[in-house]
């Protein structure tokens, strides 16, 4: 299944961060995350800060194991990234990690390289969105 066909993830109804179309999952659904935490901005920020601290290690490990041909480890890391991103409401990254996990499960060598490249790109953009959001939140007090 292509990520664009997966409707199990929340679909955005707004373009809060400015670069997504209404039918695409958001890089960061901040409002949803705040709602998850019952409006507690401090814990929301803590979760985003933990994401910024943890996710680079996971992405680095995934790329390393992918490069080394350690498919089982890579699949497990894609699964972990999918879950961590989903709980952070980094929906676009979660969806792409799901696609990578699926490629590994199906041993889909034809799509895995493109899927990994896209995952890395989405990851970089997600990090930028989160940093921007944290700066805005802190600026607005």
């Amino acid at each position, binding site marked *: 299944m292509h990520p664009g066909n997966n409707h199990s993830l929340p679909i955005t109804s707004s373009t809060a961060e400015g670069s997504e179309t209404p039918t695409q999952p958001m890089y960061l659904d901040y409002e949803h995350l705040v709602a998850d935490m019952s409006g507690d901005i401090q814990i929301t920020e803590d979760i985003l800060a933990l994401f910024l601290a943890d996710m680079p290690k996971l992405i680095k490990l995934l790329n390393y194991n992918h490069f080394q041909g350690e498919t089982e480890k890579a699949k497990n890391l894609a699964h972990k990234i999918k879950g961590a991103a989903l709980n952070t409401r980094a929906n676009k990254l979660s969806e792409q990690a799901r696609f990578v996990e699926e490629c590994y*499960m199906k041993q889909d060598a034809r799509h895995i390289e493109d899927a990994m490249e896209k995952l890395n790109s989405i990851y970089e953009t997600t990090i930028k969105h989160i940093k921007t959001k944290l700066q805005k939140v802190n600026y607005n007090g």
Partner: protein
Amino acid sequence: MAKILIIDDDSITLMKLKAMLEQANHEVVSINDGIHAMNAISENIPEMVITDIIMPEQEGIDTVMQIVENYPDLPVVTMSGDQLGINFLELSKSLGASATLRKPIDKDELHKLLNEFF
């Protein structure tokens, strides 16, 4: 207020779930693998365990089986994200899990589940 042990190898999920449970006035102990969780349970039995299913050190399914065998009255809730391949949530229920939760954890679903037990 209940004492709840949560198990997940993902620190983000642990932080988020812990905060959600504490907001509902529960006392939470969080652990990032099933092996240490069994030690923690034996030292201080909680009133509920919420565990992820797919973890590297010890799969949540194994943890569920150990809890069901050793602490048959202790409610165990399993959680998992969207599933590729085997339906681990259904499998965990067939092995004795009391309930299941889908990731990402939905606040209302979590509260509804807690109300059923406490």
